[in-house]
């Protein structure tokens, strides 16, 4: 697909020059979050909704996010389509836009997304005018259905949330990249910039990272590192990587014969 090579990431008609999305959970220090957004030039960041704790003064996460950044409200906590829809509506009512990361999880151990419920939620939300970015387990058929009901992007997981294990689903995300026409944003499980570069090298359109940045020793520098890796991987994809040689035999990069030999 030609738009796979466009300069900007385009979602629902909106252009983004950065292909690095940042999650805002787990930051020990909210100032680090603000600096991490700046250091990485992230243009889309996720936030979530939660019941207020009446006993405790909590900081307002939104104060740490620059106004020109696109807020993507995560429906985390939703166990089915109905709950996801309800959270999305609350977010819109609160004045925070219509960009929703549709995350439906009904498994408290592995936190695997429920693709079928996610499709239902996207279907409803799209009709209500939301821009939905569904978080999914990378299944070709589910991705096709999401596109059919109006998802302007899909966000397959690289590995289980928070595990930092990298691209365990590589073979299957590759299929989405080849077959699905909307942007494929790899989300969850990317634990190092090399993982992000690997995703981009094979043609992913963007990546979203949270845990690996927020829990790093230096989250601000790590955010920058991920953003650099995303650019590196993107440039490599555009440059057309050479293939791995399958034989066990080596191939010289220096001239090896004709000198000092008879």
């Amino acid at each position: 697909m030609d738009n796979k090579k466009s300069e900007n990431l385009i979602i629902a008609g909106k252009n983004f020059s950065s292909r690095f999305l940042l999650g805002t959970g787990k930051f020990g220090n909210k100032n680090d979050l603000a600096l991490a957004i700046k250091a990485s030039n992230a243009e889309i960041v996720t936030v979530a909704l939660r019941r207020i704790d009446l006993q405790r003064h909590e900081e307002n996460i939104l104060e740490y996010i620059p106004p020109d950044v696109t807020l993507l409200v995560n429906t985390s906590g939703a166990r089915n389509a109905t709950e996801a829809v309800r959270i999305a509506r609350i977010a819109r009512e609160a004045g925070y836009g219509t960009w929703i990361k549709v995350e439906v999880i009904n498994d408290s151990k592995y936190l695997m997304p429920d693709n079928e419920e996610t499709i239902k939620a996207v279907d409803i939300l799209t009709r209500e005018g939301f821009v939905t970015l569904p978080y999914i387990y990378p299944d070709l058929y589910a991705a096709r259905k999401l596109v059919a009901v109006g998802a302007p992007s899909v966000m397959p997981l690289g590995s289980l949330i928070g595990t930092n294990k990298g691209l365990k689903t590589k073979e299957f995300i590759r299929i989405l990249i080849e077959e699905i026409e909307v942007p494929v944003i790899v989300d969850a499980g990317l634990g190092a910039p090399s993982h992000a570069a690997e995703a981009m090298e094979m043609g992913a359109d963007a990546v979203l990272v949270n845990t690996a940045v927020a829990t790093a020793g230096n989250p601000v520098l790590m955010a920058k590192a991920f953003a650099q890796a995303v650019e590196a991987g993107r440039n490599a994809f555009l440059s057309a990587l050479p293939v791995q040689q399958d034989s066990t035999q080596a191939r010289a990069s220096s001239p090896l014969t004709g000198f000092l030999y008879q």
Partner: protein
Amino acid sequence: MNIVVNGTSNIVNEEISLKQFIEKHCPNPERVIAEVNEHIVKRADWDRQLLKENDKLELITFVGGG
């Protein structure tokens, strides 16, 4: 008067509007999103929404998330 706030029962003695309740109990009222009985009440309407026996309040806010 019993009101369920975020899943917990609260006894409220006087008649009180949603606005008054939030300002009394929430540290940052400007951050709050309010549902009463599963319907969102817009901030502009908090003042005239009076709480009733057995109302279920959800007081919600934005937090960091992935």
